[in-house]
């Protein structure tokens, strides 16, 4: 069948398809292949010298251990928070669900480095917020977040929404008969939860855990802000320090390190696969999802508890961030006399680097979003409507750069673009284009997924009707399909924009003077001790993020369910 579908394609269609195949290969397979080659043949000559020296270096193994400790700790915390909240949201009759989901998922959309910065403003002796409340610890006290525990806490908070989202999707697909059958058999609600619901939720839970594991492993912002000051290095920060300290000379070495991260991430993904293959979790009936558990008298206390959680993980840190951004210098308590907008003034109008960063981040994110949508609409067309084995592999290839930690892609991009491009003779290294390349490669799948679910909702005969009317593929894509998948494509573009806008991992490794992103500037402000400027800039990015998220609510009704993570 797949063969005949491919045969049925002619001329123009085939050109377009091969164009997309080549593009995806360049974005995903080329970088990873280049990275692996560098590991085997550093600098072009086959040798095991670099691998040997990296693997025998005790710093490597300290970083691996630290990475595993923080990643596993963060994952456990995220799973505990995420699954409890998912059960409440999906299974009970709590009120104001939409608002709650929006707030709970927000930390996922806020940049990790902003989360880190915000939390630092709540706990340290110089915290403007604590000083305002008179709760600040005495000067000289170490900020308790500069530690492995601090990293674990923030990773857990950052990625709890990931577990929440996968689990909620699973719970939604759970037919109510399965629960009712358990209740009818005389089991109590908690017994049903323990013996029926949770076992059936193993696949989404495991998927959520894997996602959380890989994301925590690749996270750079949180260990950079919390670990580097305490000299507690994980793999991404180790790579960053090596590269920042010594420049491209150490490329082969960091290539080995990032392959190492890649391998650990893959191990997590494969483990997930193995765990799920052992048992049969298939759900056989299809019917509407249930919200079977009435909380009754527990409703108000539960709601208070859940909103308390939001207060703790969202409101308090953001308040700390806001407070710091409003004081004239770090350590000054915030009150009516000291409050000032000077920091905002400075980062928006005076500081050349941060002004450039606004332009760069906006430009990069918008361009990446645009390019990704333009690629995703035809790509999803083939993936969803012309299924074949080759296309399944293509889909997998498109997922890879996002599934693997960002440093992996960044180092691979350096390897590819360090030398001028063959034939063209242009060098992308140290330009903004190398960041752009990585953004498109890494976030392609974020745009692709919503567009693909848009296609799944579309009746294929709408396209076929245009086909018999004589319209060629490109024309059908532009006049029929694009308008119909436009809401999903817009959602995809927004997801790409928001993610790229808040991005730090890739740009921290790839930026050059004049090509800073907002994440990089926040990071360097904080590293230079200018926490107030860092806070002001971070508040601005949060405002942009929030505004864009809220804007999506205007057209959310036209979207397939589950496309926007922050919508219930």
């Amino acid at each position, binding site marked *: 069948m797949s063969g*005949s579908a491919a045969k049925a394609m002619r001329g123009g269609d085939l050109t377009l398809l091969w164009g997309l195949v080549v593009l995806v290969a360049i974005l995903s397979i080329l970088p990873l292949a280049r990275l692996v080659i560098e590991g085997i043949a550093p600098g072009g000559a086959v040798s095991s010298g670099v691998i040997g020296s990296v693997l025998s270096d005790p710093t490597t193994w300290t970083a691996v251990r630290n990475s595993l400790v923080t990643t596993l700790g963060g994952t456990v915390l995220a799973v505990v928070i995420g699954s409890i909240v998912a059960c409440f949201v999906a299974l009970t009759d709590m009120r104001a669900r939409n608002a709650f989901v929006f707030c709970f998922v927000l930390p996922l959309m806020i940049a990790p480095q902003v989360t880190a910065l915000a939390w630092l403003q709540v706990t340290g002796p110089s915290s403007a917020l604590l000083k305002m409340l008179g709760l600040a610890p005495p000067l000289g006290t170490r900020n308790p977040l500069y530690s492995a525990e601090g990293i674990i806490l923030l990773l857990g908070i950052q990625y709890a929404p990931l577990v929440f989202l996968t689990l909620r999707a699973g719970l939604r697909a759970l037919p109510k008969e399965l629960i009712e059958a358990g209740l009818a058999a005389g089991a109590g609600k908690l017994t049903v939860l323990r013996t029926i619901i949770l076992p059936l939720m193993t696949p989404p839970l495991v998927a959520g855990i894997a996602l959380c594991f890989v994301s925590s492993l690749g996270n750079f912002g949180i260990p950079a802000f919390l670990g580097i000051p305490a000299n507690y290095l994980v793999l991404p920060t180790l790579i960053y320090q090596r590269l920042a300290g010594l420049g491209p000379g150490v490329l082969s070495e960091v290539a080995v390190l990032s392959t190492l991260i890649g391998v650990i991430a893959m191990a997590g993904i494969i483990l997930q696969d193995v765990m799920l293959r052992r048992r049969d979790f298939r759900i056989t009936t299809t019917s509407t999802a249930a919200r079977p558990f009435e909380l009754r008298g527990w409703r108000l206390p539960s709601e208070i508890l859940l909103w308390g959680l939001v207060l703790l993980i969202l409101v308090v840190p953001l308040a700390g961030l806001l407070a710091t951004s409003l004081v004239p210098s770090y350590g000054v308590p915030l009150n009516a006399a000291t409050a000032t907008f000077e920091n905002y003034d400075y980062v928006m109008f005076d500081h050349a680097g941060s002004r450039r960063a606004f332009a760069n981040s906006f430009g990069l994110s918008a361009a990446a979003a645009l390019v990704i949508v333009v690629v995703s609409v035809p790509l999803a067309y083939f993936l969803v409507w012309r299924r074949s084995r080759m296309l399944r592999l293509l889909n997998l290839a498109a997922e890879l750069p996002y599934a693997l930690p960002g440093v992996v892609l960044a180092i691979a991009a350096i390897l590819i673009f360090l030398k001028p491009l063959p034939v063209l003779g242009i060098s992308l290294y140290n330009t903004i284009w190398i960041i752009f390349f990585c953004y498109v490669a890494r976030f392609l799948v974020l745009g692709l997924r919503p567009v693909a679910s848009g296609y799944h909702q579309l009746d294929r005969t709408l396209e076929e009707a*245009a086909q018999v009317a004589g319209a060629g593929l490109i024309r059908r894509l532009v006049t029929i399909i694009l308008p119909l998948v436009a809401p999903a494509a817009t959602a995809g573009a927004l997801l790409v924009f928001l993610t790229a806008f808040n991005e730090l991992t890739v740009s921290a490794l790839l930026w050059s003077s004049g090509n800073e992103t907002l994440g990089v500037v926040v990071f360097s402000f904080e590293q230079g001790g200018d926490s107030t400027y860092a806070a002001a800039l971070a508040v601005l990015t949060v405002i942009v993020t929030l505004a864009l998220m809220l804007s999506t609510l205007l057209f959310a009704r036209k979207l397939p369910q589950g496309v926007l993570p922050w919508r219930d």
Partner: protein
Amino acid sequence: MARLTIDRVSKNFGNYRALDTVSMEVRDGEFLAVLGPSGCGKTTLLRQVAGFDQVDDGEIRIGDTVVSDTRRHVPPEHRRVGIVFQSYALWPHMSVFDNVAYGLKVAGVKDPERTRRVKEALTLVGLETFAERRPGLLSGGQRQRVALARCLVTEPSLVLLDEPLANLDVHLRAAMEDEFARFHERTATTMIYITHDQAEAMALADRIAVMDRGRLLQLATPSDLFRQPANETVARFIGEGMVLPVEVGAADSEGRCQGRIQGLEVSLRASPLQKAGHAKVCLRARDLAIAGPGEAGLGAHIVRTVYQGGFFRLEASLVRAPDVTVHLEVPEPFHHGPGDIVDIAVHDGWVLPATTES
């Protein structure tokens, strides 16, 4: 307008043979209905003709052009066929006018001409006042008509309709049937009309193709199909035919022959080539009646009587062969009930030609 030739076409989905060496010839200007139970491959056949799939074997020609065979495949956009989908497939983001105009735009027809033709097509289906509406605001029947107008505006040589009335209620169906018939009369376009509704097919079509499990069983005029089914499956499928074993004598040149059904002597229709021997006979409900006084009949136990307004539908099993059930209509008044024995006279029947059908 064009002739359509489907020559030994097969189509597989994995191991499943959705079309099995189907051949048919549709004449220029003919209205052909394709009839068959759900899942028998009607839509699949249509999709091969429209070019959405590639055939695995055989050949399809429109006019004299080969559009599909195992090597060649003219894509749908170059076949100049019109199609009306079961789901209508109207583009929700375009007005009725733009929906209809689309094919002309694609073909590069410029404006005064284009608007004129769109208006004409909309007038033809009685929707000229709805041009600016979005399809979402139309009723089911109106949507159906827009889909028809969209399909006809480019004057395709061949029009394919996949259960176009399946989503409409009974009244609208009748009205649309009329409209199709009138339309076909006026334009004389070659039409292939898929349906699983026998009455619809009988009412509209010049000829009917009956399909089952991917195979073409018979292609004939409605009357031939009803009076002279080619085999047992068609006989049972069309008009609820009853198939009984019979001993026949050789047929005369007019196609009449004598037969014996469970010992009852009857006069039957048959192919003039019918030889004497064992055979099967197709009986229609209207061929049967309660035997009059002195008339010979088949003794049968009444199994069920269902009142259907003015007459009863009677189901009975033969006394001599209890596994054979027959059904017939008897007028009111009728005072027998389940368990009673009646004599059933057989006035007519069609001897099924010996076939290779498995």
